[in-house]
């Protein structure tokens, strides 16, 4: 009987409405109890002293690009999941824009096997909405569900055919699976490198207007409303997008949404350095958008925080801005940015942050995670909420270093990541 005791931390489990100093006991990979006293410290084989720490259900990042198969020079399932562990994530959902895309049972199985071999964190598979991500005909969604796909997405090749999107929402509804939508009207953002606004105007860089995102959120929420399908809006980046999701929720549409740490931290002013590490899609927007994103997370319009971890090998980002690919790393800075930008200024309480990074992602993906309930798989993250640390991309577990946060000082860091009752990561020196 393998036992692990996490002692004296502030245990937060929004699913059970728990937020108190307690011991957490794990036996054979399952949570067996929360509470002081009867936890039998003496009988534990391994103990983590969590005094002053926050103990949460394992964090879940539902938007991660692991790049394998096809772009192993950027990231692999092994390296990406190690980065996840170092960032405090016990589960990731990987997005299917790989080469080839994840649109067959065999491809789903490949990911599962690679993840099992890596033996790091849990990897849940998001599969393609359309065959080969071409937006022409539906992928074999039922087969993919049988293979274990938890959600469907064509990611950055958004389904532009409204009829196909309607069919996808309808069809997925019979499996209870959500469609994760990258909301972008490509015709409106064509040639764009950054947010369209005064900064793009000054820099002469191609703009991606907020409307490119909002028009598509409008379309898809209307389709979700009429079909009863489940829509999850990925990386909302504009104030208008937040308002559209809020309005749809008020109408009872089955819509959820996520936001990325960079979208509540940086603005398009960052592009003044012409740094390709500030280029992502959707792009960094304005200060007013950042404010709206934060308000949306605080009031629950935006359900969860996801990173859109998008590794690109160094040489790919060392190009001219219009040739460099979109995307930045996210896994290893997510807690630090969330604590620094949301908790420290008082926008969010810890319970809401844990909900946004664990409880709700689990619920949206329909996976048996995101809680410390007795009998649940023992995925646990221990966070030092007060630790200040300097971001150094040289220490990242990811294969890539494309982070605009290199050199930043952040507060809050995972000190231990436990997956299935096994301590998979401990911050060195703690």
């Amino acid at each position, binding site marked *: 009987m393998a036992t692990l005791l996490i002692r004296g931390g502030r245990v937060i489990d929004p699913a059970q409405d728990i937020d108190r100093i307690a011991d957490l006991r794990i036996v054979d990979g399952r949570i067996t109890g929360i509470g002081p006293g009867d936890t039998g410290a003496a009988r534990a084989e391994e103990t983590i002293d969590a005094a002053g720490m926050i103990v949460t259900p394992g964090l879940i990042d539902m938007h991660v690009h692991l790049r394998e198969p096809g772009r192993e020079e950027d990231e692999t399932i092994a390296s990406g999941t190690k980065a996840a562990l170092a960032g405090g994530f016990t589960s990731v959902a990987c997005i299917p824009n790989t080469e080839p895309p994840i649109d067959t049972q065999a491809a789903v199985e490949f990911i599962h096997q690679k993840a099992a071999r890596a033996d790091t964190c849990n990897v849940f598979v998001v599969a393609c909405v359309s065959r080969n991500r071409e937006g022409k005909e539906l992928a074999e969604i039922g087969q993919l569900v049988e293979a274990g796909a938890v959600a469907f997405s064509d990611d950055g090749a958004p389904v532009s055919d409204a009829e196909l999107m309607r069919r996808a929402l309808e069809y997925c509804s019979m499996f209870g699976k959500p469609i994760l939508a990258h909301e972008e009207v490509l015709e409106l953002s064509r040639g764009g490198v950054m947010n369209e606004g005064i900064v793009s105007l000054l820099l002469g860089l191609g703009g991606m207007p907020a409307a490119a995102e909002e028009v598509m959120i409008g379309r898809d929420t209307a389709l979700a409303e009429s079909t009863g399908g489940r829509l999850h809006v990925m990386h909302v980046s504009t104030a208008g997008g937040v308002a559209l999701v809020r309005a749809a929720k008020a109408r009872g549409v089955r819509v959820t949404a996520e936001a990325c740490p960079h979208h509540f931290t940086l603005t398009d002013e960052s592009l003044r*350095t012409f740094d390709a590490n500030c280029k992502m899609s959707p792009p960094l927007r304005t200060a007013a958008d950042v404010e709206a994103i934060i308000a949306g997370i605080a009031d629950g319009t935006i359900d969860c925080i996801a990173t859109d971890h998008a590794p690109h090998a160094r040489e790919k980002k060392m190009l001219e801005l219009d040739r460099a690919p979109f995307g930045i790393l996210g896994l290893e800075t997510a807690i630090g940015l969330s604590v620094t930008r949301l908790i420290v200024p008082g926008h969010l309480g810890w319970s809401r942050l844990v909900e946004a990074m664990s409880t709700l992602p689990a619920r949206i993906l329909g996976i048996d995670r995101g809680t410390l309930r007795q009998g649940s798989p023992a995925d646990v993250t221990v966070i030092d909420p007060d630790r200040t640390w300097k971001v150094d991309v040289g220490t990242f577990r990811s294969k890539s270093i494309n982070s605009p946060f290199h050199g930043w000082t952040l507060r809050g860091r995972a000190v231990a990541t436990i997956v299935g009752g096994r301590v998979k990561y401990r911050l060195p020196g703690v």
Partner: protein
Amino acid sequence: MSLIPDVGGSGPATEDDSAPPARIRPPPPEVTTLPPDAAMPTPPPVSLDSPGAVPASWTHRHLLDLERLSPEEIGLLLDTAASFKEATHGCRRKLSVLGGRTICNLFFENSTRTKTSFSLAARRLGADVVDFSASGSSLSKGESFIDTAKNLEAMGIDAVVVRHSTPGTPHLLAQHLGVGIINAGDGPHEHPTQGLLDIFSIRERLGDLAGVTVGLVGDIAHSRTARSNIHGLLKLGARVIVCGPPTLVSPRWRELGVEVSHDLDAIVPVCDVLNLLRIQFERQNTRPFPSVREYAHLYAMTAERMQRARPGLLILAPGPINRGVEVSAEVADCPQSLILDQVANGLAVRMAVLWLVCGPRAEGATTINHGDGRGI
């Protein structure tokens, strides 16, 4: 394209050592001894006495854009250009203030006039010039522009004049290279020497820019010339109006203190200067107006519109000009047209820029690498 291998040689190379293939032939090397201060405007902004040093008030290692320059720095550039124009008898004679320096033209985008102008300016100051163009180079073999530039740097050049279709490319080079970078146009972002020569040409005719009303007409959205003009003119106190259809002229320009108009007829009577910008079809995703005919009807500067202008309205056009699109032939060739003055003044401005970027620094002078983008 052959690169000249002897760039690190001691002492000034002779003219022919560094001549790129025949295209650009400098005038006979008639090296003048600089006249004393008497020949210069007072107070002389720069001493051109060899071996004079770059004024300590010029702290930039590069010339990347006009947005980051102060009004004083722009004034210094213009005054230096005036001094050089005078010292070279209207840019015709040769000086030796950059003897022994090598300037590389690194053009990733086609150009004839700007490259020729930079080459001539460098030679007028006694510098050697090498040309590097992207076509037929290793770039077409997949090398990144940074690697290409690093190779040139390793050959011992002193400054890179760079043109590229992507905004910010000169700024990235400034981060990765240890030599001076001069932006000769980065996509639609900036073209600082064009902005300076436009302003120089206006200043030559009208004096102080404060209170002067300048209309920029045409494809503001895709024009680097417009951006450099806007920054420079605003800093010197001019009133700036941008004019064109809303698809090319965003109302957002108002946030910078620029006036925005979509009606050329409304602004012609209030302008002292009109700068007529070319439609950059090559940079547009979708055509921003129904037809060239309709555009010309609404926005071409014609003799008929000239009649409603203030007497003495100055006409500028950065070129290449499209007669019949943004400007009619009569207007392009009218006495108030500065189009050819601009070309001549381009030499003076580029001499000033080259000298400030590569000229000798006084003992202990400090420079700031604004290429990191965070400076100023």
